[in-house]
């Protein structure tokens, strides 16, 4: 498998299927693990890091057929390719930007990514489309078992799995769901939702960019505590709150649909119009308008356009993806021109009831 094979598809997390997929984009679980016989990454010498990388690589190649695995040496990867993996949520920004031996192993369907020598020696991450935390837990647990068969993790009788940062100690587990909440943002209720989540020890952050007005109205909700609760309890804690937020978002959408139908319809249609006809558009503006159109499609205000098409556009119009799809590195200004062109063509060829030719 090659890195470029990934670019055309949306990746598992934006596939746009699975339960509640109009609001729940994806479910993700990651486990932080360290090898007992080595210092943590920040304190490891280059030879320690290289040895950890080798041990984990060997084990990963034993458990996954090489034809179905992409093993990437992140240290030697070009900048645009690192950015590409960050945009696909296959590696963290820190992993892209740090130094020394480090890697990522990704399966063909992009359901898992194993980051080697990130903050911890190993970060096992599983992503499933839609709301499927139980399925994600089952897969991540199995991967963890397989890797552990031939390696000894740093584990403490009292404290559980030992991690470089004490905030992850215990289960080393972060359970998260990515939600699309445009109506809660539009009705200015999102802050209220956040405050109530923080009270029950759940963390909220924007999926793209920082701050409360997340780009594209995508938010990630995850557990903060990793110690003193079992993995199943942590999964349940996040899983239990999701239907509540889905309900709030649906209520907000209904409210907008009922109370300001014309305004909403106008707004959504204008955003769609701009995406189809702009000649220059930034990544940020694209996300904002795509988010609005996505809600428009879900509410039946826009017809002939499918959610998976929009999901693909969210990812394809990101800077590194755009450059990989076009096949050359571009400055920001040129990207804005190419992005507008890409959107136009893509929307033309992927809408039904549109007489334009398909390519």
């Amino acid at each position, binding site marked *: 498998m090659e890195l470029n094979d990934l670019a055309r598809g949306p990746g598992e997390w934006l596939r746009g299927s699975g339960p509640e997929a109009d609001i729940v984009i994806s479910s993700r679980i990651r486990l932080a693990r360290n090898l007992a016989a080595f210092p943590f990454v920040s304190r490891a*010498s280059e030879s320690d890091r290289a040895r950890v990388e080798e041990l984990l690589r060997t084990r990963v190649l034993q458990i996954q057929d090489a034809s179905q695995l992409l093993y990437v040496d992140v240290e030697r990867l070009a900048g645009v390719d690192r950015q590409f993996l960050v945009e696909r949520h296959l590696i963290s920004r820190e992993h892209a930007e740090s130094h020394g031996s480090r890697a990522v192993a990704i399966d063909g369907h992009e359901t898992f990514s194993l980051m080697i020598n990130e903050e911890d020696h190993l970060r096992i991450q599983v992503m499933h489309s839609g709301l499927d935390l139980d399925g994600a837990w089952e897969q991540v647990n199995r991967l963890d078992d397989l890797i552990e068969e031939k390696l000894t993790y740093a584990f403490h009788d009292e404290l559980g799995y*030992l991690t470089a940062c004490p905030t992850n100690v215990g289960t080393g587990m972060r359970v998260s769901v990515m939600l699309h909440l445009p109506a809660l943002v539009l009705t200015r209720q999102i802050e209220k939702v956040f405050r109530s989540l923080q009270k029950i020890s759940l963390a909220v952050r924007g999926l793209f960019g920082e701050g409360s007005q997340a780009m594209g109205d995508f938010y990630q909700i995850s557990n903060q505590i990793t110690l003193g609760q079992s993995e199943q309890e942590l999964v349940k804690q996040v899983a239990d709150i999701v239907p509540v937020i889905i309900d709030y978002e649906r209520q907000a959408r209904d409210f907008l649909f009922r109370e300001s139908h014309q305004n909403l319809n106008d707004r959504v249609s204008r955003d769609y119009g701009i995406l189809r006809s702009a000649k220059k558009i930034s990544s940020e503006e694209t996300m904002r308008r795509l988010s609005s159109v996505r809600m428009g499609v879900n509410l039946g205000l826009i017809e002939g356009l499918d959610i998976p098409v929009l999901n693909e556009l969210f990812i394809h119009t990101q800077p590194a993806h755009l450059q990989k799809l076009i096949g050359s590195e571009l400055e920001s200004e040129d990207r804005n021109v190419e992005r507008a062109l890409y959107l136009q063509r893509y929307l033309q060829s992927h809408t039904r009831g549109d007489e334009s030719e398909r390519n």
Partner: protein
Amino acid sequence: MKCQKCDKPSTFHITELTDGKPVELHLCEEHAREYLTQSSQEPTTASSMAAVLAQQMAQQMAVGQTAEELAELDQQICPCCGISFYDFRSQGRLGCPHDYSCFAPQLEPLILNVHGETKHVGKIPRHAADRSEAQTRLIQLRRQMEESVADENYERAGQLRDEIRRIEQSEEIQ
């Protein structure tokens, strides 16, 4: 103690080194977050939060402890990876698994503060590290070997390498 910027109680206590002199700030959670996002341009907010947590914990420890006792705790060094507790406090990252044992008294209040618990109740690896002593020893020996190489003490480095190999071979699982 009140937050320096509003009337809420201060829960974050940040020490900044300005021109080599420590300046203390006492802030509520909201203002601490605002201050931290302003002052650090780095994208790694997670690590700066970790450093703040470590600071916060140090503040808790300060109750009932003299400055000398505190300084002593700070200077305690892990025999295995060689970091001091001060290194952890300033970076928010531990050096090796053994730090959890060696800095246990200092870490416990921090862990309790973050998680509200101190005991793991989840998954247990199938071959839990009953060999942890040997593993810890390996970390220490590898560090000593690298130091010996750096000092051009190749004889010592060779001895250490042999000992590392011996332990590695007796451990069928790395």
